[in-house]
């Protein structure tokens, strides 16, 4: 693998309707730095894909956006601006942040509860007690996640009895039910078969009408299929950010081109 110059990058200016912005975001695990000064603006109601080889820091970056990196000796420096507020501050209530910025993980992780319980559990904790409202949220979120038809007749069964793809869509439904603004997805389909992957991609395209979605994927085709914007990361550096079309057809950086055409990663 040839040496690339990591100090040069191309970041397209996106100015209209920004949902989330990071300013010089660096993540440290103890003394080890995982990402370097990442500044990025995420447009509203779009899908932004983060791509890059393993260890490029894309998941780390994503997990910082709703402050899921807050444990042990992890340290996040820089600003994360949401609705004009820097949410990367210890003064900001992290639970509120996560209510507005939801997340879905690589490994489908429904709770060992009923399908209905999975969705209502967090809502109840956040103070929604009205049964009608809860039921509405269950139905609408399951419908939005395109799993309603498969589970509507056994909402009280254990979520553990679902298939992998169904579990993942349930997790998406669970996140949507919180009615967040932004949805972070960390390689949501990497543990799934192609059919389930296809269904989830379809779901994402639907969801983009109401939500801002940021997805980390190491599946380049997936990025090109679903996303509007793509950010390419390498060794903790953001090297190129552009609309998806440009990145895949006409990358500005040599390294981006090499990655997309499968030279490494």
């Amino acid at each position, binding site marked *: 693998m040839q040496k690339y110059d990591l100090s040069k990058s191309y970041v397209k200016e996106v100015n209209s309707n920004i949902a989330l912005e990071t300013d010089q975001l660096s993540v440290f695990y103890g003394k080890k730095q995982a990402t370097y000064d990442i500044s990025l603006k995420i447009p509203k109601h779009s899908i932004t894909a983060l791509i890059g080889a393993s260890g490029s820091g894309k998941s780390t970056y994503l997990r910082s956006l*709703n402050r*899921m990196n807050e444990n*042990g000796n992890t340290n996040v420096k820089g600003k994360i601006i949401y609705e004009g507020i820097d949410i990367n501050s210890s003064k900001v209530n992290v*639970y*509120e*942040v*996560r*209510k507005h910025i*939801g*997340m*879905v*993980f690589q*490994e489908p*992780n*429904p*709770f*060992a*509860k*009923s399908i*209905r*319980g999975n969705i*209502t*559990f*967090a809502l109840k*904790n*956040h103070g929604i007690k009205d049964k009608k409202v809860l039921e509405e949220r269950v139905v609408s979120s399951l419908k939005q996640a395109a799993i309603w038809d498969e589970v509507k007749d056994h909402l*009280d*069964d*254990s979520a553990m009895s679902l298939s992998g793809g169904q579990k993942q869509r349930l*997790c998406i439904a*669970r*996140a949507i039910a*919180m009615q967040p603004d932004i949805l972070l997805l960390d390689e949501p389909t990497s543990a799934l078969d192609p059919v389930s992957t296809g269904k989830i991609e379809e779901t994402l395209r639907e969801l983009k009408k109401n939500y801002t979605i940021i997805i980390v994927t190491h599946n380049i085709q997936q990025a090109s299929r679903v996303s509007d914007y793509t950010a390419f990361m390498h060794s903790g550096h953001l090297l190129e950010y552009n609309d998806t079309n440009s990145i895949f057809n006409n990358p500005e950086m040599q390294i981006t081109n090499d990655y997309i055409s499968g030279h490494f990663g």
Partner: protein
Amino acid sequence: MNPKSVNRIATTVINSLVGVVVALLVLLISYILVTGLPHMSLDFLLSPSQSYQAGGGIRDQLFNSIYLVILTLIISFPIALGAGIYLAEYAPKNWIVDVIRTLIEVLSSLPSVVVGLFAYLVFVIKFQVGFSIISGAVALTIFNLPLLTRNIEDSIKSVPDFQMQGALALGLSKWTTIIKIIFPSAIPGIITGIILSSGRIFGEAAALIYTSGQSAPVLNYANWNPFSPDSFLNPMRPAETLAVHIWKVNSEGITPDANAISSGASAVLILVIILFNFFAHWIGKKLYKKFTVGEVK
């Protein structure tokens, strides 16, 4: 040798080792039951003990054992749960926590008589609690805690981390997640710990001699007021448990039927533990089901 025949040999070795254990178990338990069951009768279970005449029963001791186990669990389980949660989820990863862990493990190797004497000097004498079930429960709690805490910590840690991640991402607090999501999934493992530790409580004698005492005053089973001195529910009364009774009968017992009482009581103890284990597993299963599936109606 090819892997297949190694596999066969290993399986045979494992099976025969297990065979030895099973044979030992059968031998031990049948020895206790065979020598004990002939002495077991309703009368034996329901009459009070005698200090020197034949024909004494174990009514009060049996009740005391069960009551003591329940009281000890009521005291030790919440503490062990909290401490286990702390160690599993909140404890920083540094040497202080490592030292604490090691100290807790060292605590479990103290002979029970040392713990008993400690509880005696501190609770029975200094705090003037007196020889009482509650002092016994405190003593048992002391050496119950290390095993139970360790067990709860491990059970909680064995629940996959992505359950926690999923809940945190929904804006839930760690504590809520632990109590409502992680703990229910850990119940089966925790039940094992409870069974192991309560088995130890059933069988413990040395620590109780100095704390809950070794004489059983006359109990009134119709008196449900836990503050009345002769009530069976009063936690401040001295209480001889089954294991202590077995110890006493064997060491200084001068009743003519000491052997019969000892073997009968041992058989009863085994049966009680079997019942207790079934009960604990049953409760565990119920709780597990209740907390995990169909919580929402």
